[in-house]
């Protein structure tokens, strides 16, 4: 049996069902709408597991599921060395969103990371603490800023309503997911010209195969044939 993890609700689940459906594999929730049980039509030996998109990277890496659909940003954020622990089978063309760094529009002197770094140095001198960037993507943002050589900042955790943290003065800048930038603009923020950390989309991943049975390996091949990936 090959276990396929799919987000358990919302547009991401519906779009995933559509994507598989268009390729001849029917995925559906079984039982009532509130139950997280699923059924698979069009291929034998594949089991649908519905779970939170944020948990799919961990379950894939742990080997509890064999395949999983989740955002490419979540895999990179939640798994150290992600590309050694899971593999991308197919980008799915939906769920697109960019992880970006944004600062107040009032900062007319800041349009690039170079500016952000200089502003952070001055901010630390003036205020006595490092410039705060609110985010829930700690690993991705820290790795990005380290590679880019930005200093004198600190990350503060924000699990929701991140765009509001600047106005509330709990952060000076943010790093968050955006698809249209509308919410950012409404909150008086703008994206840095070179502030794109990762362009994310829903992606089909497989876990590491080292403890798979031959039947599971064969099943994956068969599924890939049907899906054309």
């Amino acid at each position: 049996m090959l276990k396929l993890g799919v987000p358990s609700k919302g547009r991401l689940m519906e779009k995933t069902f559509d994507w598989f459906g268009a390729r001849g594999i029917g995925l559906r929730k079984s039982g009532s709408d509130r139950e997280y049980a699923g059924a698979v039509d069009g291929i034998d030996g594949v089991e649908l597991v519905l779970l939170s998109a944020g948990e799919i990277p961990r379950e894939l890496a742990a080997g509890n599921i064999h395949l999983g659909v989740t955002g490419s940003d979540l895999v990179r954020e939640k798994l150290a060395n992600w590309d050694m622990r899971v593999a991308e089978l197919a980008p799915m063309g939906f769920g697109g969103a960019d992880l970006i760094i944004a600062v107040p529009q009032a900062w007319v002197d800041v349009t690039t990371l170079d500016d952000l770094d200089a502003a952070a140095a001055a901010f630390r001198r003036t205020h006595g603490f490092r410039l705060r960037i609110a985010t829930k993507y700690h690993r991705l943002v820290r790795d990005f800023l380290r590679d880019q050589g930005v200093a004198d900042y600190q990350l503060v955790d924000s699990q929701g309503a991140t765009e509001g943290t600047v106005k509330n003065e709990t952060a000076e800048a943010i790093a968050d997911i955006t698809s249209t930038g509308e919410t950012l603009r409404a909150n008086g923020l703008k994206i840095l010209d070179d502030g794109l950390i990762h362009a994310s989309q829903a992606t089909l991943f497989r876990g590491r195969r080292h403890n798979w049975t031959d039947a599971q390996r064969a099943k994956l091949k068969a599924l890939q044939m049907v899906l054309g990936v």
Partner: protein
Amino acid sequence: MPTSPETLKEARRLRDLFAAKGAQVIKADVLQPADTLLDLYGEDIRARAYLTSDPLRGEMVLRPDFTVPVVQMHMQTHADPARYTYAGKVFRKQETDETRANEYVQVGYEVFDGQNPAAADAEVFAAIAEGLAGLPVRAATGDIGVLMAAVRGLRTTDARKAALLRHIWRPVRFRALMKRFGSGKVTPAREALLAADDPFAQAGPDIGLRSRNEVADRIAALRADAAADPIAAEEIALIDAILGLRETAPNVLSALRDIAVDMPAIGDAVAGMDARLDAMADKGVDVGSLEFEGSYGRTSLEYYDGFVFGFYAKDRPEQPPVATGGRYDALTAHLGQGRAVPAVGGVIRPDLALGLR
């Protein structure tokens, strides 16, 4: 993983060796307050060290090295000169290579002595080399002080020098700054902003702690920078030449003397290197074949600001260094609240050393 009896025995041997050189044996808490390290390293420390929180003491860290607690201990004693040795575990997150140990023993030798920095550098290097005697290792050395002196000697504004010195340890940003300061150009959008009568005409709402005054101050700084002459191409070439040096120490020394003709500001640092090589030769180090790299120590060891060195297993380039060390004068100034004591030290990993026997 529990430390093997052999590693503990080797750690004791090394600590006794350093103690016999007059070093006082000291201990440090495994759990250290995190604020000092966070202040020094910023977010990077979270990727490298294990942070945890205590309900009363706030954020704590499993010690990632002994240097900071040793400096703090020393700054309270006022002893000068002073020598310390210690043996104990340190803890480092390994985010990219799970085969690397995340807890291991370090044995260190630290010298606080402002009388003769060259002799102190040589003393620490020779002590570490003695601890590794007979092992198939090669030493790599460098001197961050030469690069810092070169930056201070650039014919440009103090603001630019400060920006470059701030990024000595971040090669990507350092290079980007050099390029920008050397180009004499700004983007059209930036030019328009600096020329604007009211730069805030298109600005959005004032939100957040960074005030309009702070933005205005930076615009003034940007205007001053745009009015300053670009850093001359010859000077940028000299910095590149220093960073590109990779030769035996005597050959590097003669190359640096040539560079000092065009850049007298590095004269003292070059003389210091000369004195250090003499002191090392006096200690029996084969300086003629000693490797020196102009950019050695610029990544990952942010508090070193002078002599830097590492010992590597000859046949195992993928292994972390068996020993590392360097001078950290600025760290003592930072932790000493105004009182600085020139300091240099090094650590050996007994587990890796044993693996080479």
